[in-house]
């Protein structure tokens, strides 16, 4: 699909190769972009409403998103076009859920995006609804994210007063928690159940909110979709890799000068991503990439690694929701992992035996490894348990924990030795690097 680019000077006229994309045109000081400024910067959303409705893909947007190669930015990096197609083909009574719950403690990019660019997210949600023929759009945000909820409320009121949207999105303050934002858990909650994952299939695109086919998309994904709708798939592919096109938001934290959200092209090296956050502030021991379901990478060889799902998968990792934490040499990766795994074990929905018992056992084992004394048995037991829990939950919670722990055991092998020899953790008494909610 070739859509006419917006007028000169707007991001659409730049051929797509410039960064930032999503985060262009932001006012200073972190204020939200209002509707007038949003429309001036991006041009109006190319609504299809009123021209033709029907099954399939009357607007051509599903096909454009398929060609764009856009993948979900919530963590799984699933092809967005395939999800859109499945819901569009499923029938007329479908629902779009914009997932802004962002349960990943080390991630802030979705909240940042919704707080400063609410209209780009809402454009994407409504455009996606038109594309799949949905009549209902729900934007879900963690109930604790008051500033984000307020920003979206203002944005929705602005849109309502101008009659911009062909259908009106609603806002839902969703419960907090690591697995609450998993798509089947979110759908379960919207159907007035507890926010815990359900057995799949049926997946939400088959049977979701009110039993209708439901498109659950991360809010950043929807913002990218709003740009694909405006500027086309070729514009979108001007950044990123052939397999993973576009830009992506990263939350960079730890020992960097400007911790926060940056937008980079997919495939950017870890070194360049850290540079975008002001560079390191200390000698680094390792990076945590992908979030708490991600992997540790030793700092030395990691600098040149490309931040793409394909490149990280070769190392047993994932790009996930775009978390990048720089761990300084003064911190202890084992102690950090132990704290995070304790938290993740507590976040189990408590439904599946291997997750309930396995994660508790793994958390205890990693805590033992982070403590003093020789603990060969603990290491062997933890390895056996991570092997046993993989693929054995209704959702991927146990698999994510297993990934994180296995990478910690290999990257921090010398740290395990040191704890065993020295009998204490050198980071004892230091403030932790990885955030864990209370």
């Amino acid at each position, binding site marked *: 699909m070739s859509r006419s680019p917006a007028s000169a000077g707007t991001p659409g006229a730049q051929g797509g190769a410039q960064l930032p994309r999503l985060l262009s045109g932001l006012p200073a000081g972190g204020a939200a972009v209002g509707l007038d400024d949003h429309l001036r910067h991006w041009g109006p959303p190319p609504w299809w409403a009123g021209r033709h409705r029907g099954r399939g893909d009357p607007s051509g947007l599903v096909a454009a998103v398929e060609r764009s190669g856009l993948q979900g930015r919530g963590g799984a990096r699933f092809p967005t076009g395939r999800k859109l197609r499945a819901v569009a083909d499923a029938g007329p009574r479908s629902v779009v859920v914009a997932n802004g719950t962002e349960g990943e403690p080390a991630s802030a990019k979705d909240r940042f995006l919704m707080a400063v660019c609410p209209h780009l997210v809402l454009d994407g949600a409504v455009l996606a609804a038109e594309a799949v023929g949905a009549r209902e759009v729900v934007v879900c945000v963690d109930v604790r994210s008051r500033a984000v909820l307020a920003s979206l409320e203002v944005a929705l009121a602005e849109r309502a007063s101008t009659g911009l949207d062909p259908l009106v999105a609603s806002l839902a303050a969703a419960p907090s928690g690591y697995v609450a934002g998993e798509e089947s858990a979110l759908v379960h909650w919207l159907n007035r159940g507890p926010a815990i994952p*359900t*057995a799949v299939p049926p997946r939400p695109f088959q049977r979701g909110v009110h039993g209708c086919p439901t498109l659950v998309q991360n809010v950043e994904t929807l913002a990218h979709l709003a740009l694909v709708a405006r500027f086309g798939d070729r514009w979108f592919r001007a950044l990123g890799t052939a397999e993973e096109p576009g830009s992506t938001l990263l939350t960079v934290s730890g020992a960097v000068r400007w911790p926060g959200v940056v937008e980079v092209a997919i495939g950017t090296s870890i070194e360049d991503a850290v540079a975008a956050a002001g560079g390191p502030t200390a000698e680094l021991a390792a990076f945590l990439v992908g979030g708490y379901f991600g992997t540790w990478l030793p700092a030395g060889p990691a600098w040149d690694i490309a931040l793409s799902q394909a490149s990280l998968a070769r190392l047993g990792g994932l790009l996930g929701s775009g978390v990048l934490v720089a761990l300084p040499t003064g911190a202890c990766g084992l102690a950090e992992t132990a704290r995070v795994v304790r938290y993740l074990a507590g976040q189990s929905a408590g*439904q*599946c*035996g*291997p*997750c309930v*018992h*396995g994660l508790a*056992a793994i958390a205890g084992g990693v805590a033992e490894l982070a403590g003093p004394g020789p603990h060969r048995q603990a290491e062997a037991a933890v390895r*056996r*348990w991570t092997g*046993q*829990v993989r693929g*054995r*939950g*209704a959702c991927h919670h146990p698999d994510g924990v297993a990934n994180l722990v296995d990478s910690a055991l290999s990257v921090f092998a010398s740290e395990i030795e040191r704890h065993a020899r020295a009998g204490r953790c050198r980071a004892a008494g230091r403030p932790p690097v990885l955030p864990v909610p209370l």
Partner: protein
Amino acid sequence: MYLKVNPIACDGSALCAELFPERVRLDDWGYPIIEPGPVPAGLLPHARRAVAACPTLALRLEA
């Protein structure tokens, strides 16, 4: 046919591992780990017996 367990419904009665040890073993907490891959035709009667015995209907055979 594939033997599958619904991990939410399973409460670790472990009858499946007792009745069908050829394809089901238990993890360290007593929950079933099922061999991946299709159940060989000769073992299907055992698989069906295990499915029928599951007290929480968590075990099933799928095409």
